[in-house]
């Protein structure tokens, strides 16, 4: 499996000279399976560049298929969806999985973004590709592009955000963006989902100080991310979903602090990465 980061920012895209190194696009990660199939994790504005990059392959000629896993429907996780160009190529087939009490409800949420007052395409049905939408059942494994996937909701402000564990041939990747754990720490189910993962992509929006300033936003600090990585004994922790006001220098500092915290808290063996737009990460190599 190989991961590529297309958007690593939280809340709202942050263009400008201060963010060019880590990138200013909102959340989107692609996972290329060992069997060369594609899973997209969230559809923030990073999805636009991912879509463009896919047009040279089968998705460019209407002969492609891929799955999209949506953690939740806050704008920074879906706003790139209307600009994901393979969705406009008839013949392509997309399976979309996300939260919702029913599949129809999830479809309605995605339709809400396409409505004519907001976007000229007016409905998903005008996009061209075949789009299948399914609400996932938490903690019940399902199959996506030949991988075994388990979803589990993390607390996130007043809502929740799904974390996904994706397993293929003995390797495991976990995507856990937008996690705001209560004072008592993460739910046991979340720790179980992260357990022994080869790669844990985890919400690291804030410094501990900023996390204390914004306790209700339902987002993690670097401390929270390090703590769960150590407790669940992951091999690599990837920092993700940086605050929109953090400059490249601020993210450098967040990364350095993460490394120090890992070393102090018994996670010296855990590899640390700061997600960077355009970067790829091979899983388990």
């Amino acid at each position, binding site marked *: 499996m190989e991961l590529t980061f297309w958007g690593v920012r939280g809340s709202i895209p942050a263009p400008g000279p201060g963010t060019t190194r880590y990138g200013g696009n909102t959340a989107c990660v692609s996972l290329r399976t060992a069997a060369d199939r594609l899973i997209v994790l969230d559809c923030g504005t990073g999805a636009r560049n991912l879509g463009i990059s896919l047009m040279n392959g089968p998705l460019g000629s209407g002969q492609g298929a891929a799955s999209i896993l949506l953690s939740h429907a806050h704008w920074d996780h879906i706003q790139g969806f209307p600009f994901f160009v393979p969705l406009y190529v008839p013949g392509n087939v997309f399976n979309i999985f996300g939260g919702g009490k029913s599949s129809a409800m999830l479809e309605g949420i995605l339709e809400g973004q396409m409505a004519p007052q907001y976007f*000229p395409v*007016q409905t998903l049905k005008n996009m061209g590709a075949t789009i299948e939408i399914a609400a996932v059942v938490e903690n019940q494994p399902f199959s996506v592009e030949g991988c075994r996937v388990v979803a589990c909701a993390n607390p996130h402000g007043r809502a929740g955000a799904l974390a996904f564990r994706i397993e293929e041939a003995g390797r495991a990747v976990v995507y856990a963006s937008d996690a705001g754990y209560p004072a008592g720490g993460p739910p046991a189910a979340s720790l179980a989902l992260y357990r022994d993962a080869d790669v844990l992509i985890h919400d690291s929006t804030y410094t501990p100080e900023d996390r204390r300033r914004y306790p209700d936003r339902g987002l993690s600090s670097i401390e929270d991310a390090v703590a769960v990585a150590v407790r669940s004994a992951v091999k690599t922790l990837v920092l993700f979903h940086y605050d929109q006001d953090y400059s490249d220098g601020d993210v450098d500092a967040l990364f350095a602090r993460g490394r120090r915290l890992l070393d102090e808290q018994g996670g010296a063996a855990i590899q640390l990465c700061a997600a960077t737009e355009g970067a790829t990460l091979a899983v388990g190599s």
Partner: protein
Amino acid sequence: MRVRFWGVRGSLPVPGSKTERYGGNTSCVEVRSAAGTRVVVDAGTGIRKLGKELSQSDSGGRADIHLLISHTHWDHIQGLPFFSPLYHPGSRLSVYARKRDDLHLRAVFASQTDVPYFAVPFDETKAAITFRELHDHAEFAIADVKVSCARLNHPYIATAYRLDADGASVVYVSDTAPFADILFEDQFIANPPSPGAQLSPADQARLVAMRDRVVRLCEGADLVIYDTMFTPEDYQRIPHYGHSRPSDALAVCHDAGARALALFHHAPERSDSEIDAIVAGTRAVVERARFGIDVMGAYEGLDVVLGRE
């Protein structure tokens, strides 16, 4: 008056090193009169930085803002939930946009921050927010700023605004297609019309009248800010997306006797150097035609002073 560009991009924000100079934020322009009246046109992601500046000013984060919305496509409203004065008690926000038969303006904005799309519902913002729905050719005053409107040719319909104050005028014409080939209303157009296809005489007449109104709105303007998202090739390929070329903007400015044109609403794929070339090309056309129009490429942070400051 002082015109400041906070977001100049169309469609969606585009961070990255190729958009560093012109900027990657979506549409937002601030107009401030000498007397201090603050009118903002559109609330793309650029409005976030305006909010930050206001929160660092002497007012302690409170602000009195009049927000004119060209239309409610995402790139013109998506920054509003991140506009910090909304969360300061004592702030006042008056939102103006074209009246529609199918939806109330307030509902369009409130839905943007409904569950499950955003963490803070509209009703929990702290500012006093009012909505005013406008008819196509409304004229009204915001303190010392006179506002006039005209209808534009864009999917789901957009509005152009002219602001007069301090003996100067600025017109915001975004988003719009040229006034030919397609009459945009609420319909979804799946495929572009075949080149040279004739419009019905009735539609043709409506487009001519619409353009006349826009030319009149721009008459003698000191600055016209115009949707020039398309290259001529884009217009050939996707005219049904509803945007203009620099040549369309120049023709309107020339017919209206406008003094300056800001190329605006740059396409997301346009790099800084490509925009440089478009600006240079448009200036060359002006020079050859001896139009006497000052052409600039709108960029984030551009400040233009018109009339008294």
